[in-house]
């Protein structure tokens, strides 16, 4: 009589584990593509959000009755601070923009000053030339007058 081969439970359990892993993966893929699951997940999320805001409204109501500041009151203050920061940053933007403009006009002004100085030097040189010519002419006319006399 042949003896029936005993299954190797050690290996069999390993195969069962692998099978479970593969089938779970396939199951998840199927579930996550199922419109019914996605719809119910969306519904769950929406209901959760609604429950959260309903709870918050009740808490606020309770705090209001106790004349205590609600979450909304605190948020309003935080948002005012945030708006003030925004305004400050917008002013900073303007100041930086003006600084850019100033830097550009300072550059233009510097160029103009250099040009003016150069022109002035040129004119002074020409003036000096003219003065020396006038001097020469005067000298000549003086010496001519002396010779005539």
């Amino acid at each position: 009589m042949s003896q029936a081969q005993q299954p190797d439970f050690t290996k069999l359990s390993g195969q069962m584990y692998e099978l479970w892993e593969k089938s779970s993966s396939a199951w998840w893929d199927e579930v996550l593509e199922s419109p019914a699951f996605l719809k119910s997940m969306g519904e769950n999320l929406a209901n959760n959000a609604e429950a959260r805001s309903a709870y918050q409204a009740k808490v606020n109501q309770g705090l209001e009755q106790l004349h205590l500041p609600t979450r909304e009151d605190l948020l309003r203050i935080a948002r005012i601070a945030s708006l003030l920061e925004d305004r400050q940053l917008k002013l900073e933007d303007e100041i930086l923009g003006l600084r850019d403009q100033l830097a550009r006009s300072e550059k233009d002004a510097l160029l103009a000053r250099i040009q003016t100085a150069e022109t002035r030097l040129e004119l002074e040189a020409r003036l000096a030339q003219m003065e020396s010519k006038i001097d020469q002419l005067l000298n000549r006319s003086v010496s001519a007058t002396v010779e005539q006399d």
Partner: protein
Amino acid sequence: MSGPAPDPLKAFGQSWLPIDGLSQIERVRRGVHIHSTTARPPVGQTPFQVVHQQDKLQLKFYPAQGEERRPPVVLVPSMINRAYILDLEPGRSLVQALSELGHPVYLVDWGIPQAEDAQEDVAYVLLELLQRSIDRACRHAGHPKALLMGYCMGGTLAAMLTALRPQRIAGLCVLNAPFDFEKAGRFRELVAHLDVQRSISSDGLVPVEVMKPAFKLLDPMGNWSKFLAIEEASHDPERLRRVMIRERWLEDNVPLPGAFAQEFIEQAYQNNGLMRGTWQIRGESIDLSSIELPVLVCSSERDFIAPAPSVEAIESLIPHARIERLKTGHIGVVVGGFGPKVFYPLLDQWFRETCPSPEPRP
């Protein structure tokens, strides 16, 4: 980093090890124990200076090393995770690598929004927070324009701003940033039919407790196999540290301002507004095809958060964009070994090609 606490069930669990199937379950149990009792390593250790702040946003400056005067690089991470993904730890840090390569780096750290920030919509994020950050980075660096690099949702936002206000931008690089949301994989399926107005209040935050399960559903079995990976890594302290630092980031979600989430899900995921050109910000249409600047688009082969087709679709709107498909995953590209070997040098080279010579002061 302090290691895992002593395991009270270790002796019992070891009796399961000889049986294949049970040994896997025991390994997961050990993984859960290690995960819950191991301290998370420190992150964001590269020294920085905060040069601008607005609401919860901080603009962090990492000075360039060397004498070269390069234009500033502004890094824009996603708003749903912490910015330290770009500065995870020494040796696995995009900001550290870029600053060592000679680029002055400015990291936009969105911070953690609080209830008072709930009304911040996409227009506010783009035109008030991001645009001003780029302006301040340029002023701080003394350059008229910056190189902009956005990661994940940060890349989508960076491209939107480039289309709207390109004046301060010299070039745009987007990494794993979705544009065609019809191809955006499982997350799109999850939110496609969501009644956004009912589910998300524009006056509140989308809490982390709501976002976390949504992320877990992107790869449900990954939540199981993660513990196997942790158990495997636990035999090597250095490897365990690397796994736990990544875990820290993955666990560290950030709530989203309700107004922003409402608009982004509706316009991007449900209407595919960027590809259709129907998304308007304060009355201005966002036309990505109007971008004329140099653009580098990087997608990752194994990315199920921003699948490559959803990223590369931008090519149809910006034909001159250079497309690079990287052989890595969504996170591995910035924190894995792939970053220092392939991605950081690629980025450095593209920045230098785009802005070859230092520009004069404005």
